Structure formats: structure tokens, C-alpha cells
């Protein structure tokens, strides 16, 4: 199948190094301490953060740092065909773990000893790149909750189809079976916190694909920063300082 037309356009009309449209809103869940909705094109994810709060299960308490927990779910209506998946299937457990590890790496857990932070992410619409969208949504929600972080961790995916590196794969491109690299990135520290890849790639191509994904992460970080600035300005203005 042809994923990049001779004119250099992809199936949804994007250029190979073009990202889908981003949209983010803070404060979607009123009862949560922090929440956000993050959209990448047709992929839509909602995240809610509770905490830092008292540890529910005393056996899990850590004396010198906070306990971070994460739960990833996919709404039944999120995919094209409505499927009822059992809770806690392999895929969602794996993604929960990935998100938890990524967020734990950037949260300054040592500042909140003997407490617990819960992150809940749910996919409302799935169109490829849910993993990245979840991480971005969780970052925004954590920032909204006022939880100290080393940096805004962002994530983006990139692939390699028709011998062209493609940024931010959608569902059709994702299910083509080509290589799919998901990167989690700390833009200020210039560090990679997450790297996952399906299938194989040669070393030099991998480097260019990963570089592309990192560029995507940086663009997302800029956007998220802008959204947070806007939100803080508004709060500040309302309070009348």
C-alpha cells in the first residue's frame, strides 16, 4: 500500500514531517486535583490526577518518596468497532506501566514523602499514538495539580514507511506493520525517558526516525508550555494579584 503519494503527501494529507493538530484543555474533571484533555488529531485522551494524598494501602507506603500509581483504560466507544475489553488486559497493563515509569522519572517524588499520587488516563477516541497522547495528557494534569516536576515530559511517535520517516502516525499508518518508535523526552534536560519500537530498523535509519520523534516532542512541549502559561495567567488574573 502506498502511504506517501508521489507528491509527498500522506493518506490524511499531511507532509511526512508534519504533526496532527494539537488541542489541549485544562480542568476537565472538577473533583480531581488536576485534569486535562489532550487531542492529537482524532486521538483524544482525558487524564485526572489525585494527590499527593495519604497512602491508601499502608503496605505500599514508601518512607522517603511519593508512591506514583497509574491506570490506563480505553473507553468502549473509542475504537471503530465497539468492543468490550476486560479490565486489566495485557495491553492496558503494559501501557499503565509505561506511563507510570515515565511520569515517575519526572516527578520530584522525594519532596512528597509518605504520600501517594494517582494518575488516571482514559482514551476517548483512538486513532493511533494513544501512548504518546496519554503521556502528554498526564503531564498537563500533573502540572495543573501543582505537583513539582523536573521538566514537562512529552511524547511523540514516528515511523518509517515507503522508505520515508513519518512523524506522528495515525491508526492506518500504525497498523501497516512498519516500525513505530515512541519516544518520551525531557526537552529542557535534553534526555530521553522512554523509547519503544515495534519491528526492526537499521541503525542509521533508526537515528533519523528517532531524531524526528524528538523534534515532535519538542514541538509538543512548546505547545503544552503555552497552554500552561495561558492557564496560569488566567488564574492569576481572576485572583486579581
Amino acid at each position, binding site marked *: 500500500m502506498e502511504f506517501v503519494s508521489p507528491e509527498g503527501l500522506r493518506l490524511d494529507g499531511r507532509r511526512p514531517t508534519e504533526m496532527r493538530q494539537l488541542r489541549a484543555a485544562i480542568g476537565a474533571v472538577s473533583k480531581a*486535583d*488536576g485534569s486535562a484533555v489532550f487531542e492529537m488529531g482524532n486521538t483524544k485522551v482525558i487524564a485526572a490526577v489525585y*494527590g*499527593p*494524598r*495519604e497512602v491508601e494501602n499502608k503496605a505500599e507506603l514508601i*518512607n522517603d518518596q511519593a508512591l506514583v500509581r497509574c491506570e490506563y483504560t480505553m473507553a468502549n466507544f473509542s475504537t471503530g468497532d465497539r468492543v468490550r475489553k476486560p479490565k486489566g488486559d495485557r495491553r492496558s497493563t503494559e501501557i499503565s506501566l509505561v506511563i507510570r515509569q515515565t511520569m515517575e522519572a519526572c516527578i*520530584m517524588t522525594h*519532596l*512528597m*514523602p*509518605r*504520600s501517594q499520587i494517582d494518575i488516571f488516563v482514559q482514551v476517548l477516541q483512538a486513532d493511533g499514538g494513544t501512548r504518546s497522547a496519554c503521556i502528554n495528557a498526564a503531564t498537563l494534569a*500533573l*502540572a*495543573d*495539580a*501543582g*505537583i*513539582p*516536576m*523536573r*521538566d*514537562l515530559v512529552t511524547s511523540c511517535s514516528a515511523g518509517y514507511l515507503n522508505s520515508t520517516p513519518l512523524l506522528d502516525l495515525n491508526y492506518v499508518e500504525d497498523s501497516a506493520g512498519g516500525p513505530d518508535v515512541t519516544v518520551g523526552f525531557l526537552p*529542557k534536560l535534553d534526555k530521553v525517558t522512554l523509547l519503544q519500537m515495534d519491528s526492526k530498523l537499521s541503525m542509521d535509519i533508526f537515528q533519523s526516525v528517532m531524531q524526528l520523534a524528538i523534534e515532535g516532542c519538542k514541538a509538543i512541549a512548546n505547545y503544552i*508550555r503555552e497552554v*500552561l*502559561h495561558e492557564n*496560569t*495567567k488566567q*488564574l*492569576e488574573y*481572576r*485572583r*486579581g494579584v
Partner: protein
Amino acid sequence: MSALCVPVVFGRTFDYVDGLHLFCARYKPETGDIIVGRVVEVAQKRWRLEINSNQDAVLMLSSVTLPDGIQAEVRNLQHDGTLQLHARSDKYGKLERGQLLSVPSYLVKRRKQHFHQLDQYGVLLILGCNGYVWVGELVEAKDRMEVDQVNLSEEAHMKSRSYMSLEETEPDYTPLETRRNICRIANAVRVLSILGFNITIEVILEIFELSISESVDVHDMLGAEFCVRVAEKEADRRSMATKRKG
């Protein structure tokens, strides 16, 4: 703006700034704060209070009896973040006959006065530093002292029973007018929290009066129309304040 929860880079090391907690959802305890909490666990010698912070606070048992909403002062902050409270003075204690509201803690400023006895409405209003706000019936201080004395004279295991008997002897209802006032003030606080304005006693009373003068019903106070009115009022106040400065 440093209020974003993003650390600021100082040279090569990372540090975090005070502004970090400016819009933090959770309460950051400081010694001497007056807070309102909810009892979540009752042990032999101490109570555990949920206070909208990183951890639950510990209140060593004093002259209060039954678990409910409670008000106390932060006594000391232990190194591991455990919080100890005390409610020694008789102005602290159990709260009843009213409602507990929770607002973002950054909207409540630390002030000298956190208890407000609004005698004209028969309402007791407590703005806890942790973002919990209590609006309840104003019980005469004398009554409370009596309650305390009775409880102290009773044996520990008799406490609950003595409380029950007290409840029976006291008139256990709140007049309708007071209840209306409680709801009206509670809704004023809710409106402020929805709009994200600082919550102070002056503004609450202003909104209270505004709702009465415009004859807005209690249940209509949270509607968009009244919110707009409150926002307009606030805008007027601010423009006045800047004019005075200029």
C-alpha cells in the same frame, strides 16, 4: 511567570521556586494555621484528620467527642511531613449543624481572623487555611462550655452515650431563617470558588447582600446569571481600587 510547575534552571543544577505552590491544588501546612478537617479514623489516643494535604494530620485526643467535621490549629510539622494539630483552646472543637465546603486552598489567604461570627445572621463562618470552609449555625459560646464540662466529667466509654442524651435535651433543630442564611453564605463561597476569586469575609458578605438586594433565590445563586453579576461587581471593585491608587 514562575507560577508554572516547572522548575527554574539555576546554572546547571535544578532548583524549585516558591511560586511553585502558588496554584497547587493541595494545602501546604504551616505552623499556626487554622484549618478545618474531617475525621477519617478514630484511635484510642488520637484522631486522624483529612485536611486536603499530602498526608492526614494527627490530632491527639482532647475535649472533643464524636467524629465529624473538626477545626484545629497546626501545632508542628514533623520532619517526615506528619502533621500534628492541637485544639486546646475552647474556640476549637467539633463543628455541627452546618455544611463543609471545599475550595482550592490558594484562594484562602492567611489572615488574623479566620472565625467569623455573623451575629446578625446567626451564622458561624470559618475559612480554613487548607481550603475547607465551614458554614454553620452560630452556637453560643456558653452552651459549648457546658457541653465540654459535661463531657469531661463523664467516663471515656460513656462519652458517646452522654452525647446522645445531650442531643435529646437540647433543641436539635436550626431555625429556618438561619438555615437559609447558611445556604446563602455557602453558595456565596461556591460562586467565588467557581469564579476563582480570592475568598475573604468582606467579599462573601458583599455577595450575600447583593443576592438579597436583587432578590435572587438561594438555588439560583450558582446559576450563570448571578455569576456574571458577581464578576461585574468584582470588576467594579478592582477598577475602583486602581483608581484610588492612581
